[in-house]
């Protein structure tokens, strides 16, 4: 198990290195003049040159990548140019070890920018995750137990309908109707749990979290339903029933245990993808999370920030993949890692 984990970590790290190279190639080399976007529409040739030098785009792509990689491992200082640093030592920004770069648009390190907004995205992801997994599994089990009857059809139909409408439309309905016109809920806003307490934190997150959960819920209902139905024909379920175990135990212990494996895979990856920001939901509800940060970064063509966020999300997804595979062996003793 330990050797397996080590090997996976190594290949994950390797994958991340390759990804950083691909990302650099895609963003820094795909456009012949990345400085054009940073400089704006009315940019003279001279300004363009200056911007290029200031952002370090005049160096070869390999050098730019090497500097980035060194920053991640050992940290670095901005601005890059040593002469500039000596000329104005008061403007030098220290960027500590996992340094993802420096955003000229914000005048902050990418690391600080992301870590400021990460709590918002993580809170939103966790509450949404709790909602969709609890309600999704519950409805999925109910649909399976009442297979073919009105309840089953109703659950499946409703989940499909909720899934079919675009997220930004559902979010706008919640915002315009539920919150503003009918006044059922205060306008959603993020209040940190440490300052405002858990209740304000939770209620402020509720509408965006429901919006986000609706996107995923249909899939979870479907999978739970399918796997519960499949397990019902297994011998060990028949044995459990024959032993006279109550329905609660048969479903809650024996059946759900089998459904756990696919659910862990799916939810691990879904949650990981969300931790790096729910772009649409955060934009609709105006939440200052990583998702909204990336939209701003893209609008300003802030390359270091975009690359930083992309690689952060990728790292989370790769880590989640490893964790999910390790969890397999814990949940299902038949699985041998190696």
């Amino acid at each position, binding site marked *: 198990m330990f050797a397996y984990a080590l090997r996976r970590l190594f290949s994950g790290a390797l994958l991340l290195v390759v990804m950083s190279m691909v990302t650099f190639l*895609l963003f820094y080399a*795909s456009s012949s003049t990345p400085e054009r976007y940073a400089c704006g529409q009315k940019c003279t040739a001279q300004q363009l040159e200056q911007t290029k030098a200031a952002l370090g785009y005049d160096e070869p792509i390999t050098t730019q990548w090497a500097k980035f990689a060194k920053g991640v491992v050992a940290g670095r200082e901005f601005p890059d140019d040593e002469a500039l640093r000596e000329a104005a030592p008061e403007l030098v920004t220290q960027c500590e070890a996992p340094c993802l770069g420096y955003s000229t648009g914000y005048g902050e390190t990418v690391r600080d920018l992301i870590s400021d907004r990460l709590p918002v995205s993580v809170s939103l992801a966790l509450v949404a995750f709790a909602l969709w997994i609890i309600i999704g599994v519950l409805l999925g089990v109910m649909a399976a137990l009442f297979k073919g009857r009105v309840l089953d059809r109703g659950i499946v139909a409703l989940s499909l309908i909720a899934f*079919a409408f*675009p997220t*930004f439309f559902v979010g*706008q309905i919640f915002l315009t109707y539920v919150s503003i016109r009918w006044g059922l809920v205060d306008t959603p806003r993020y209040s940190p749990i440490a300052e405002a307490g858990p209740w304000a934190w939770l209620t402020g997150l509720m509408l965006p979290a429901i919006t986000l959960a609706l996107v995923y819920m249909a899939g979870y209902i479907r999978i739970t339903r399918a796997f519960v139905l499949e397990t019902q024909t297994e011998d060990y379920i028949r044995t459990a029933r024959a032993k006279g175990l109550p329905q609660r135990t048969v479903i809650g212990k024996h059946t759900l245990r089998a459904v756990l494996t696919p659910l862990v895979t799916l939810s691990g990856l879904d949650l990981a993808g969300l931790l*790096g920001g729910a772009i649409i939901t955060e934009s609709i509800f105006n939440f200052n999370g990583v998702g909204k940060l990336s939209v701003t970064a893209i609008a300003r063509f802030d390359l270091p920030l975009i690359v930083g*966020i992309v690689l952060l999300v990728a790292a989370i997804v790769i880590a989640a993949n490893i964790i999910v595979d390790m969890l397999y062996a814990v949940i299902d003793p038949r699985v041998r890692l190696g």
Partner: protein
Amino acid sequence: MSLTASSVEQPGDSEFHEPEGDDKAAGKVGVEGRSPAKLAWARFRKDRLSMVSFSVVVLFFAIAVLTPILVAAGVLKPQDSNQDLLNLMTGGLPTEGMSLAHPFGIEPGTGRDLLSRILLGTTLSMTIALSGAIITVIIGTVLGIIAGFTGGVVDGVIGRIIDLTLSFPSTLMLLALSQVVVDRMLDLGIPSGPNGAFVNGFYIVIVLAAFGWPPVARLIRGQVLSIREREFVDAARLMGASRPRIYFKEILPNLWAPILVYFTLLMPAYVSAEAALSYLGVGIKNPTPTLGNVLSGALLYADSYPLFFFTPAIFIAVIVISFNLLGDGARDALDPKAGR
């Protein structure tokens, strides 16, 4: 290319083909040969929900084909502004709702006919989704067959490329790459089209496919792993058939069922994706309508003019639901053992 029993087909041995012409003759004596495709179709037809969703899908394809003709003929006028029907005192809200001339009413602010815009938007959204789904399926199928059949190093490399592609946050990449790639495409001489519609639509198609093919390749690879061990593949190899021939003449015909099902499920996913990207400002832009940008433009009027807000959303939802149901129905019909 039908779902015939090509698994027993031998290269150059036409006797094993479906005896299509003989079917009716055989039917007269009471025995009717039925190919797997016919059996699947019979199963599909028995399922009422599948048939309803199939009709709706056909209807949407009809809309997609007919709308450009009607626009060209001047029946639908997606760009004409009906300023006389707007109330300037309320900031340009229409003075009338649904009417015979404008069945879905008109857009507040611009006064354009909503029905025309939604129908043309449906055409463009469906075109994007269809092209994206076709390219996705082609890339995924070709790479999946090669990986599954060749195995070894090639399989490993394709597997790593799949891991790499799946690790990228796709929405973020679609957004972030749009400026750079669209500019690059224009440099390469891809026509911009009216209002940049062509190059922007083309961008969406290309990137949806670029990030969408890995699951298809995985699915196909899994299927090919078992198909390549079958006797008819060995036979083809022994007869000296070339690799491409084995890939596309021997193996591919056995994959139509999963490809068809996956394709049907990609369509709604891409219609939704186009809408989401429109909201984030990527893709074909107003005044050229797509379902996504019509709906994004309607967000401002969610409260003041709900007709404009709800209509495009309902169109998107109906497309997504009917294609999903069709995909489920196709899966059940093609693979009865899967039984839900």
